[in-house]
C-alpha cells in the first residue's frame, strides 16, 4: 500500500520499505513506499526483516534505485543511489532539545525549566506522554480521599478566582455489630434489623418470590455466595437534597445484593461472581467492601427465567432497597452523638484554571446493563429513573451528586470491570479532579451505552453538543467493562476531540478487552487493567478505576491541554508503560502514589490457607 506525501512527511523517520516491485533506475516517491503503520504487523508475521542499516523514508525520497527490487524490500544503502543522510539533521534536532533535556538510561526523558516555573516531563518508551505542571502543585500535591477537610482548608488560591457551588458533608456512624430484632434501629454501634422486614420486601415486588437477609461478619467471608450484583453504601439525607447538605453514612457495614432465579440461575449470569466471597472480591477497591466490614447480604430469588429480562434484576434491587430504606429511616433518627467522623466535600469552580469535564459512560443495553439515576436517597431507588428509560442521553450532574450516590448501579458484564454503586459513591477520578487545584472541574456527564450502533451515534452526537456548549478546555471519558460499549466510547472521544477539545479516555482494554474501533482523537488512553493476564477474571472490581488511574488520567489530560505530543502506545499490552508513567509523575510531583494489589494477593492468601489446612490435618 503506497503512502501520500503528507504521510511521508509525517513518517520521515520510519523505515523505508518498498510497497511493490520497482525497476532499477526508479526515482523513489512516496507512492513507492509501504505504509509505516503496517510494518510492525509485517515484521511480526515474518514477512519482512529489517536490517540494521535500513534507510528512513526521509532519506530515500528523491533517490534512485540501483537495483530492481521486489515488493516489501527494506531499502538499504547498497540498493539506493543519491539518498540524503538524515542522521545528521535529526541529531541536531535532538541536541537542540538536549539543551533542556537530560536523557535517562531507560530512555525516559525529564526536563526541568526552573526559570519559567514549569516542570516538563516527557515519558518515553512507546506510550510517550508529556506533562506540564505549574510549580505550585508540588506544595499542595498530597491528596487522598480521607483528609479532605484539611485539604480544602489548606488551599491558598485567592477567593475571587474561586466560586463555591455546593457543599456536602458526610457524617459517619460507626457500626461494629449487626443483628436481627423486633425493630430496625441503631443502638449505639449496633445496627438492629427487623427480622421480618424481608417478608414485606418480598411482597413489594411481584417478580420476587423469595429473599433471605444474611449478616456476613468477617469470620464468614469464606462462605459461598450467589453472584454479587451490587455493593451499596447505606446512607441517607439529613439535610438538603441529593448532592448537597448533610448525608449520614453507616461506617463498617455495606449492602450486598445477590440473587438467582427460581431455577437457581444466577442473575446476571454472565461473568457472575458466585463462589467463596473472600476469593471473589478484590477487597478495598473503591467499589468493593473493605476487609473487616460487615456485609448485609440479600439473596433474592426472582421468578423463573426473569434473570435475563430487565424487570428481573430491577426487582431484586428494589426488594433489597426495601430493607435498606428501613435502615435509612433508622439512621435518620440516630443520635447525633454517635457521629464518629465527618468528611466535607466542596465543589468549587476555579475560574482562572483550565475547565475540565468528566464524562462517564454507563451501561444501557438492557437488563442488568442499566443504572438508576438521581434517586431521592443516596444510592436509593425511589425517585430515580433508569438511564435506559431516559434514552441513554447525556445527563449532567455536579461532582457532588456522584459522591452522594446519584447512581444506583445495576450494571454487570464481568465483575472485574463493573462499577458498583459504591464505586460512584467513592469515585476516585471525581475526588482527584475536585481536589486538583490545577484544573476547574465543571461537571460530570453520565451517558448511557445503548445496544444498537444507530442509537450509540445518536447519543454520542448529543454528548458532543453538550460538551460543546460547556466550552471546556479538556475532558476525560471513562467507561466500564468491555464489549460493544467501546464503539460509543470511541465515538464520544471523537465527538469531543473533533471540537478541538483535548480528551483522555479511560477503559479496561489490556488483552481481552482490546478496543474494536479507534480514531485519531484516541491518542491519550489510560489502561485500567490490574489483572496479571490482562483479562476479565471474575473477581469483583479487580479491573476498575482506582486512584492511581485517576492520577495518570489527570496528568495525561494536563499534558494534552498544554499541547504536548503524546506518542503512540506499544503494540501489545504491558504494564511497564503504566509503571513508568507512575514513576515519572511521582518524581515530578514528589508524591508517593500507592499502587493497588491485584488478584495475585488473593491467590496467595488462598494458597496459604490451603497450606495451613494441610498442616492442620
Amino acid at each position, binding site marked *: 500500500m503506497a503512502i501520500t506525501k503528507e504521510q511521508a512527511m509525517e513518517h520521515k523517520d520510519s523505515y523505508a520499505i518498498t510497497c511493490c516491485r520497482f525497476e532499477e533506475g526508479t526515482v523513489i516517491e512516496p507512492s513507492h513506499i509501504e505504509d509505516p503503520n503496517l510494518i510492525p504487523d509485517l515484521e511480526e508475521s515474518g514477512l519482512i526483516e529489517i536490517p540494521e542499516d535500513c534507510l528512513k523514508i526521509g532519506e530515500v525520497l528523491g533517490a534512485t534505485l540501483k537495483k530492481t527490487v521486489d515488493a516489501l524490500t527494506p531499502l538499504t544503502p547498497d540498493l539506493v543511489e543519491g539518498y540524503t543522510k538524515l542522521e545528521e539533521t535529526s541529531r541536531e534536532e535532538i541536541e537542540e532539545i538536549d539543551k533542556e533535556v537530560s536523557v535517562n538510561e531507560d530512555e525516559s526523558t525529564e526536563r526541568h525549566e526552573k526559570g519559567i516555573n514549569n516542570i516538563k516531563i516527557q515519558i518515553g518508551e512507546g506510550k510517550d506522554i508529556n506533562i506540564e505542571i505549574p510549580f505550585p502543585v508540588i506544595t499542595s500535591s498530597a491528596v487522598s480521599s480521607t483528609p479532605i477537610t484539611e485539604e480544602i482548608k489548606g488551599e491558598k488560591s485567592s477567593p475571587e478566582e474561586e466560586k463555591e457551588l455546593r457543599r456536602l458533608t458526610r457524617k459517619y456512624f460507626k457500626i461494629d455489630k449487626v443483628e436481627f430484632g423486633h425493630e430496625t434501629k441503631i443502638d449505639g454501634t449496633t445496627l438492629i434489623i427487623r427480622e421480618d422486614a424481608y417478608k414485606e420486601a418480598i411482597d413489594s415486588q411481584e417478580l420476587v418470590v423469595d429473599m433471605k437477609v444474611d449478616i456476613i461478619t468477617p469470620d464468614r467471608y469464606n462462605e459461598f455466595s450467589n453472584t454479587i450484583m451490587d455493593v451499596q453504601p447505606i446512607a441517607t439525607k439529613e439535610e438538603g437534597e441529593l448532592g448537597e447538605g448533610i448525608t449520614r453514612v453507616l461506617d463498617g457495614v455495606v449492602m450486598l445484593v445477590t440473587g438467582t*432465579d*427460581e*431455577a*437457581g*440461575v*444466577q442473575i*446476571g*449470569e*454472565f*461473568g*457472575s461472581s*458466585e*463462589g467463596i466471597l473472600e476469593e471473589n472480591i478484590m477487597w478495598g477497591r473503591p467499589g468493593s467492601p473493605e476487609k473487616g466490614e460487615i456485609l448485609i447480604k440479600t439473596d433474592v430469588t426472582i421468578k*423463573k*427465567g426473569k*434473570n*435475563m*429480562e*430487565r424487570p428481573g*434484576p430491577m426487582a431484586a434491587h428494589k426488594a433489597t432497597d426495601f430493607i435498606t430504606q428501613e435502615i435509612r429511616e433508622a439512621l435518620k433518627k440516630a443520635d447525633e452523638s454517635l457521629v464518629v467522623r465527618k468528611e466535607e466535600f466542596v465543589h468549587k469552580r476555579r475560574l482562572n484554571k483550565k475547565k475540565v469535564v468528566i464524562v462517564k459512560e454507563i*451501561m444501557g*443495553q*438492557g*437488563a*442488568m*446493563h442499566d443504572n438508576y439515576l438521581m434517586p431521592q436517597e443516596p444510592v436509593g431507588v425511589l425517585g430515580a429513573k433508569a438511564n435506559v428509560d431516559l434514552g441513554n442521553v447525556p445527563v449532567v450532574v455536579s461532582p457532588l451528586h456522584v459522591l452522594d450516590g446519584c447512581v444506583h448501579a445495576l450494571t454487570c*458484564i464481568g465483575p472485574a470491570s463493573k462499577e458498583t454503586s459504591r464505586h460512584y459513591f467513592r469515585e476516585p477520578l471525581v475526588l482527584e479532579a475536585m481536589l486538583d487545584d490545577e484544573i476547574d472541574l465543571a461537571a460530570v456527564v453520565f451517558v448511557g451505552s445503548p*445496544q*444498537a*450502533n*444507530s442509537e450509540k451515534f445518536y447519543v454520542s452526537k448529543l454528548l458532543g453538543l453538550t460538551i460543546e456548549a460547556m466550552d471546556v478546555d479538556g475532558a476525560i471519558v471513562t467507561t466500564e*467493562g*468491555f*464489549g*460493544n*460499549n467501546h*464503539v460509543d466510547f470511541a465515538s464520544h472521544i471523537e465527538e469531543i476531540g473533533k471540537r478541538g477539545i483535548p480528551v483522555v479516555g479511560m477503559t479496561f482494554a489490556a*488483552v481481552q478487552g482490546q478496543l*474494536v474501533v479507534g480514531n485519531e482523537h484516541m491518542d491519550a488512553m489510560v489502561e485500567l487493567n490490574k489483572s496479571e493476564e490482562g483479562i476479565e477474571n471474575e473477581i469483583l472490581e479487580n479491573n476498575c478505576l482506582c486512584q492511581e488511574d485517576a492520577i495518570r488520567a489527570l496528568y495525561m489530560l494536563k499534558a494534552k491541554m498544554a499541547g504536548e505530543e503524546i506518542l503512540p502506545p506499544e503494540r501489545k499490552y504491558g504494564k511497564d508503560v503504566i509503571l513508568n508513567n507512575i514513576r515519572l509523575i511521582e518524581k515530578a510531583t514528589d508524591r508517593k502514589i500507592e499502587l493497588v494489589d491485584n488478584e495475585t494477593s488473593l491467590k496467595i492468601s488462598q494458597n496459604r490457607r490451603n497450606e495451613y489446612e494441610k498442616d492442620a490435618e
Partner: protein
Amino acid sequence: MDKLNFISSERYYEGIIIELTDGSVVIDLNGRMGQLRLPRRMLICQNEPKEGQRVGFLMTYPEVIDEEINKNYLKSAKDQLRKRIDSGNII
C-alpha cells in the same frame, strides 16, 4: 495469550441469532456447529438485533493450555448449565 501454540488461527464464522433477551444473545453457528451464549454487550449491531439475523465473526480454535482440572469452576459451570436447562425458559 502466550500459552497458545497456534496463536493466529482465527477463521471466519457465521451464525444465526436464535435467542435474544434483555441481557443475552444466543448464536447458533452455521452448519449446526454449536452455539455461543453471550452478553448482549458482546454483540455489535447497526439496529436493534432480531432473532433470525445473521452474524459474522472471527474465532480461533480453543487450545488446552493447562492439564490441571479446575474442579470448583467445573462444578459451578455445570450446575449453572443444568439449572438453565431445567428452567426450560432459556437455552
